[in-house]
């Protein structure tokens, strides 16, 4: 497959419109573009920031593996995944995934698949900072995220 895959791991914010425009540019064979933006929630006002640690090199490599698998499995025309690291405050972007395809379900499934595997396989870890100044625990991995990933191994 030579569908373009763009992966970036960066401290700075990203621009949804710029990324979608780059992926759509100068082609008119795309029928569906699905984007997923993962944002930092304030946890009912208790959270002041998330601090994201990552494994440089492997983070990019792992997300690329996931995106290429999604391209192949769902016949995507293009895929983009951008994941931030460092300190991120409520309302800010954490992650962006974009999937393009001729038809809508493949674009939905592609973006959903990339997010499920990114959650469980991309080497990132979140630590909570509270508004009261305390630094909380590392966020625990959720069984629900493993279950979400595992549903893709039941071939349709």
């Amino acid at each position: 497959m030579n569908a373009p895959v763009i992966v970036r791991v960066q401290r700075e914010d990203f621009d949804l419109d710029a990324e979608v425009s780059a992926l759509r540019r100068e082609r008119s064979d795309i029928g569906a573009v699905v984007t997923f933006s993962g944002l930092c929630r304030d946890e009912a006002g208790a959270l002041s920031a998330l601090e994201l640690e990552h494994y440089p090199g492997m983070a990019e490599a792992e997300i690329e593996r996931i995106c290429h698998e999604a391209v192949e499995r769902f016949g995507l025309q293009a895929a983009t995944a951008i994941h931030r690291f460092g300190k991120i405050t409520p309302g800010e972007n954490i992650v962006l995934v974009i999937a393009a395809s001729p038809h809508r379900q493949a674009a939905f499934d592609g973006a959903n698949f990339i997010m499920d595997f990114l959650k469980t396989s991309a080497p990132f870890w979140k630590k909570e900072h509270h508004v009261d100044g305390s630094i909380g625990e590392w966020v625990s991995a959720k069984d629900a995220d493993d279950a979400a990933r595992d549903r893709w191994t039941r071939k349709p």
Partner: protein
Amino acid sequence: MSTVNLVYFSWVRERIGKGEEMLDLPADVVTVADLIAHLKTRGEEYEAAFEHQNVIRAAINQEHVDHAEPIAGAREIALFPPMTGG
């Protein structure tokens, strides 16, 4: 004896007190599980980091592996908790 670069993340890193170290490994350290058992002999900070060793994830040369994976030829071995990105 082989030399390998070990990298740690998240609370594994915090408990050990460093993010990276070069280590000479004895010949009887064959798998990732052997490596974790070996590290646990190196002090209480390692014991704390690998207390619940079943939850520890490993990567060799930046690819996920399980605990039974042989480490022969590894340049870099990473040990870390389950991931929570996205």
